[in-house]
């Protein structure tokens, strides 16, 4: 599996790690470098007496390093992968040393243990009791939230910029206290809103509409179909047991990792991995939550194809999933997405009509070309129908340079006629933008 520099850098936890990783992609820093189909390894001389032993599991990208860094992956992990991408001839092919072999074996053992753990029975009665207690708390929080929302619309939203973030920051705390973590995320988004941008009124009303939708649906949850009720609970922040999910039958497919986005919410990192099933044509979102000192369970790299079984969360419109079983990683030989904009927009519309809670997600559209006059840019599909391109110049220039005016497959995210490209596939190469 050959990862490009952009793909490797996409694994970095922050910009400083990217820079340090690049600095370490230097042959003079490394000794005893090697590679086989399972792992990549090397010894890097750091400030300590002994060199740091750095290893990468290549079948399911994972890192281990003897350095004291709390970042995952550390700069040595990124450095050795970058060095391999640049100068493969520096890595001897062959059997891994014991310290690499031990780690790879332990990882395999751990996987088996996790499987055993998942087989243990769950106390359903206790679980239901806990849910009821929590719903009671959520109810209290929602009463308060509704009061505030009504106050805002009664008096008008015009003076919201002057009020600043305090109102919604306090509401966020209240939602956390009432165990409605999903609503806490939504209110935090309002607190962090930029009131200096044009059209803030629309953004603000969008947020309010989404919150109201969840809140009012929660009030009517008992009369709603089970799947929709599950969706609402999930919007409120109720999680479904991953153990249960692992027990249900998953969807086996070759999943293309379309994109990855990590954001920090206080001490917690939330990582969104968007996947597309190459056979099932199903889109999936794999969320990972982790703290800085603990690495995420999976390291998915945009542009790679993973053999995996995914279990989807119960929902009227199932998108969120967990990776139940993970197989080999490879490079895609082709990408099949939507044929044209009408098809893509129709799919989006169906999603919204099934579940109004669906947020924007990346889609693949084939055979698009650029059109533009230097000021406005569009993606034209093969039927010459357009949507506006929304992205910064740097991304736009990369897209233009790579495409040269030819058609390509684009991974786009957006809605309402404006789409931002996040990756492209052209000449059998997946390029992260």
């Amino acid at each position: 599996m050959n990862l490009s520099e952009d793909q490797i850098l996409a694994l970095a936890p922050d910009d400083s790690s990217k820079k340090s990783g690049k600095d370490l992609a230097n042959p003079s820093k490394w000794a005893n470098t090697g590679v086989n189909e399972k792992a990549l390894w090397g010894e890097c001389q750091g400030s300590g007496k002994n060199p740091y032993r750095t290893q990468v599991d290549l079948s399911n990208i994972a890192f281990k390093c003897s350095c004291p860094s709390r970042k995952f992956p550390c700069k040595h992990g990124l450095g050795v992968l970058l060095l391999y991408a640049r100068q493969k001839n520096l890595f001897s092919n062959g059997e891994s040393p014991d310290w690499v072999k031990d780690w790879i074996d332990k990882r395999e053992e751990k996987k088996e243990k996790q499987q055993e753990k998942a087989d243990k029975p769950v106390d359903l009665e206790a679980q239901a009791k806990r849910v009821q207690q929590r719903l009671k708390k959520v109810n209290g929080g929602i009463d308060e939230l509704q009061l505030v929302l009504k106050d805002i619309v009664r008096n008008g939203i015009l003076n919201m910029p002057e009020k600043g973030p305090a109102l919604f920051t306090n509401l966020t705390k209240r939602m956390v206290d009432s165990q409605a973590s999903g609503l806490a995320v939504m209110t935090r988004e309002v607190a962090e809103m930029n009131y200096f941008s044009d059209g803030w009124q629309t953004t603000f009303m969008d947020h309010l509409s989404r919150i109201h939708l969840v809140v009012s649906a929660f009030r009517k949850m008992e009369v709603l179909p089970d799947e929709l009720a599950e969706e609402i609970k999930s919007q409120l922040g109720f999680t479904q047991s991953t153990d249960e999910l692992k027990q249900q039958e998953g969807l086996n497919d070759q999943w293309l990792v379309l994109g990855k986005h990590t954001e920090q919410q206080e001490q917690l990192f939330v990582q969104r991995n968007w996947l597309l099933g190459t056979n099932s044509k199903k889109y999936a979102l794999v969320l990972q939550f982790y703290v800085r000192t603990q690495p995420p369970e999976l390291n998915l790299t945009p542009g790679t194809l993973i053999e995996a079984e995914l279990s989807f969360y119960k929902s009227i419109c199932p998108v969120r999933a967990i990776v139940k079983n993970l197989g080999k990683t490879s490079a895609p030989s082709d990408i099949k997405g939507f044929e044209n904009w009408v098809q893509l927009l129709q799919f989006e519309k169906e999603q919204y009509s099934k579940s109004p809670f669906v947020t924007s997600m990346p889609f693949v559209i084939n055979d698009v070309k650029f059109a533009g006059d230097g000021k406005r840019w569009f993606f034209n599909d093969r039927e010459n129908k357009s949507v506006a391109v929304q992205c910064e110049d740097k991304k736009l220039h990369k897209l233009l340079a790579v495409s040269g005016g030819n058609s390509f497959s684009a991974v786009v995210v957006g809605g309402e006629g404006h789409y931002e490209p996040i990756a492209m596939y052209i000449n059998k190469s997946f390029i992260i933008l």
Partner: protein
Amino acid sequence: MRAWEEIIHTGIIGTDKKAVNTQIFSEELLPLFEKLEKEAEDKEDFFLSLSSVIYNYRRGSFLPQKETVTELPLCEAEIKKHVNPSQVSSLQAVLGDESDSLLFYWLMQCDKKNLITNNELIPALLEIAERNKELRPFILSCTGNRGKWMARFNPKWNFNTGLTEKEIFDHGKPDERKEALKNWRLKSPDEARAALMQSWGEEQAATRLELLEAIEINLNKNDEEFLTVILKDKSQKVKEAAIKLLKQVPDSFIVKEVWEFTRPLLLVKKAGGLLGMSGKETLDLNLSFDIPEHFKSYGISHIDANKIYSEKEFTLDQLLGFIPPSYYEDHFQMKAEQIMELFAKKPETEKFISSLASSTNNFKNGEWGKLLYRKYNKLCTSVVKDFDRELQEEIAVATLSDFKDVYSVLPDRTNEWSMNFTMELLKNKSQDPYGYNRNYYKHIIHHFPVSVAEKLDSITVADPLRQSYWENLKEELKKMLAIKQQIIQSF
């Protein structure tokens, strides 16, 4: 979308003062809104429910249109081959290191092999070309047709490729015009001068001064007429620039006039040598002179700030610097070496060897330059470029502490320096790692032989306070040299 505008409008004013006008909504939605109103707890609840419905309706209602904006033309197919993955990797390493020197080196190798870079890195290279004029021609060559095609998407990348110097000079921006005139002077000095003469009256004083700088390139006798005309320019700075240029034209009226005045001041005495052999000749300088008043406008001053010369000597020194070396050779009927010996014979004339160096510098005489350096240790920087590399490096070693810019004595930006010189430079500059930091090396590292990395540890820094900084710098140098090695291997 009118419905959403109505929501925003009501939201801004507040439901206390305004109710949503549902009449503007599509008729098919009205029963739904009536249901929502009926079920709502109050008007705020109704407004928020309406807003939620229309928000979702808005999201799903977009239909793609056939835009009138035209599709982009396809980029012309490339003639040159693209670089291979290992060459791409080395370029990525170079760009990651932000070293212009290593980038120059990579581009040179790419250009030599007649290759072009991979498309993905073209914008990054064009951004560099935007700020770095020296790298620009190489970048344009190595980015092929795709690079030229990209210029249409960013006006800053429109580097006037494909335009003639005349077209750029006639229609370009001030900087571009100056650059074009310089290039034009290199190719066809007379045409370039004629173009400048033609536009002269329409140029602003500051622009005239800027453009005049280009005339120094391939300066020749044909330029005299133009330079003489512009001596009457209103701008004092332009006049001074014209005089400076006329002083460099060996047959200009200024040079001739100064020579006619100076010649009688140089008296060769034959000291009764056998059959008039030159070894017995000495030089007497007549210091009883008064220069014509208008000579002052040629930039001749009276007061020596360094106080080496008397007032007359100082004036004579400047007059001698005006005279081309060929005039001396004709006048004394001697070769360069003999003339210098003649000046060096007596202490009162020896001090004027530096005047000969000024003349050599002014008229760029390589042969005189070499002799002056070898025999009298006088460095004429304008002719160093004509010296062989060994001598250049020798001079560079001797002047390491004098010149911050090593290119003033080693002007070739393409070649690799010898190990000996590289080590001398490093030994010298490493003593001041703050002044000569990474930024300094990242502009010259491509000249270093890669194997110098192994010798870096042998360099010691005298000042203990600077040792740790040098240690860090040394690591940076090793890293840059490793990238150079990677470039070499990849090509």
